[in-house]
């Protein structure tokens, strides 16, 4: 592999598009934007097109509290695609938000010894890309410190992990 690939950022630069502008605007404010079904109020992933409870396609944007639990995770040591060459090793996880939806996200700053199913997690935001090619802020998750009381809400930090 070339030296250029070694210097790739941990999070490839992600650009916004028309369908994701509100999501990334919210991320820039430290808010994780998901969706809520206008018919039955089920909270859904940002990507959902149909309510999995009632079948409605009328979905509104909704702010998630950013807290949840770990459903599953995988340790990836070899880049599965060139764009993730700067990311490895990384943790890819399924997180269940307290509001219900499951997100497939990066889990940052977690050592494998402390990870277990149902561990409490909270959202964080990292800048994608690097100096020359900076992208949007991306929602990621981290383990919630065991001494953090859940009713104080998520600690939202802006910046690069």
């Amino acid at each position, binding site marked *: 592999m070339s030296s250029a690939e070694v210097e790739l950022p941990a*999070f*490839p*630069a*992600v*650009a*916004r*598009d028309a*369908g*994701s502008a509100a*999501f990334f605007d919210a991320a820039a404010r430290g808010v994780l934007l998901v969706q809520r079904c206008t018919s039955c109020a089920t909270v*859904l*992933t*940002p*990507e959902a097109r149909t309510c*999995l409870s009632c079948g409605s396609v009328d979905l509104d944007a909704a702010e998630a509290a950013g807290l949840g639990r770990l*459903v*599953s*995770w*995988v*340790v*990836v*040591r*070899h880049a*599965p*695609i060139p*764009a*993730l060459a700067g*990311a490895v090793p*990384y*943790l*890819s996880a*399924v997180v*269940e938000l307290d509001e*219900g*939806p*499951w*997100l*497939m*996200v*990066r889990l940052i700053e977690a050592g494998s010894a402390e990870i*277990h*199913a149902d561990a409490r997690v909270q959202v964080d935001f990292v800048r*994608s890309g690097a100096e020359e090619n900076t*992208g*949007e802020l*991306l*929602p990621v998750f981290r383990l919630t410190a065991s001494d953090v009381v859940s009713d104080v809400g998520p600690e939202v930090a802006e910046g690069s992990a």
Partner: protein
Amino acid sequence: MTSAAIAGLGITELGKVYGRSATSLAAEAVRLAAADAGLPLSAVDGLLVSSGNKQDVGIQLANVLSTGPLGVCATMNAFGATAGVMVASAAKAIAAREATTVACVFADAPLKPKESAGTAYGSPRFNSREIAGLGGWSLAGGAVNPNILYAMCARRHLERYGTTSEQLGAIAVAQRAWAAHNPLAAMRDPITIEDHQASRWIAEPLHLLDCCLVSNGAVAVIVTAGDRARDLEKPPVHVWGWGQAHEVRRMHAGSDWGLVTPAARSGPAALRMAGIGVDDVDIAELYDCYTYTVLVTLEDYGFCPKGEGGSYVEGGRLAPGGKLAVNTGGGQLSAYYMWGMTPLSEAVIQARGEGGARQAPRNDILMVSGNGGILEHHSTLVLSPHARELPAEVTA
């Protein structure tokens, strides 16, 4: 009428077969299957076509083969569940008198010289240079290929039930022991649990030896009426039952994605149709894109209770000489990766008693699974060398 039967099996050269299109391989497999049945190609009046991720074999295969008039002709794709779905569709078409002799074929040629298997099977969705929108966020999330997604499923089982990587390894070790006696198998050198544990991580908790091969090649079967198959060249393999079930990933609280698969509906349906129970099964040829797929399918089919798959596969139970003959040709882990045609082809060989040094001691009832998506699509066949009357509801 009697059940439908598989009367012919055609397998091309498999593995690193370069310089041939998937369509050319498909045509050869159909010709071989017809010849195996002792039938001229002109006897084939039904054609069901399937191919790999690139979906690059179509019903133009009929033109390539210069078939005669066809009563049935279609491409089918239920991912790894396709082979079982094709055979069930052929059996139904024969019962409905739409066709008498249906060729079902799978062909794929993803491997290229000087390219890794992983690259050959990379997801086209994430190969684009532009990384944008919610899809870009998803890409950055890193769960970008089946290795990682199946590892996500396996991790749930490990966490929930205490299943271990060594128990997954027991599946790989048993299958390699079967493969040692399969001349079609790509990987025949015996392996140990230690080898499994020492093999590199592909996506932790999955090691290299938890993952299937990638192969070029094609496999076809000829399905016809059971009473007709009796008069043909090879011993018929009767189709006693079938099932399919599909359940897309539910990404929400309460989801059992990865822990319970549609096999839990498809398997019992096929057994019910066959009029037997899971304890009657002599040989299970189970779709094994990963070791974990075998474990979860054994549970969902009812070979053992949910959560006990890990201890069930220990102690050589699935290996030659074990209590249940599973993936007797080495499967996709050790022999060849032809999607659902891998377990189906080996089932036909075993049902005929043509397994040679790897022939299982009993072959009265065989159960064959297909699995696709990320444990989202499933098909089941129950096969036997013995004829059986079709239940009335199928012929009605």
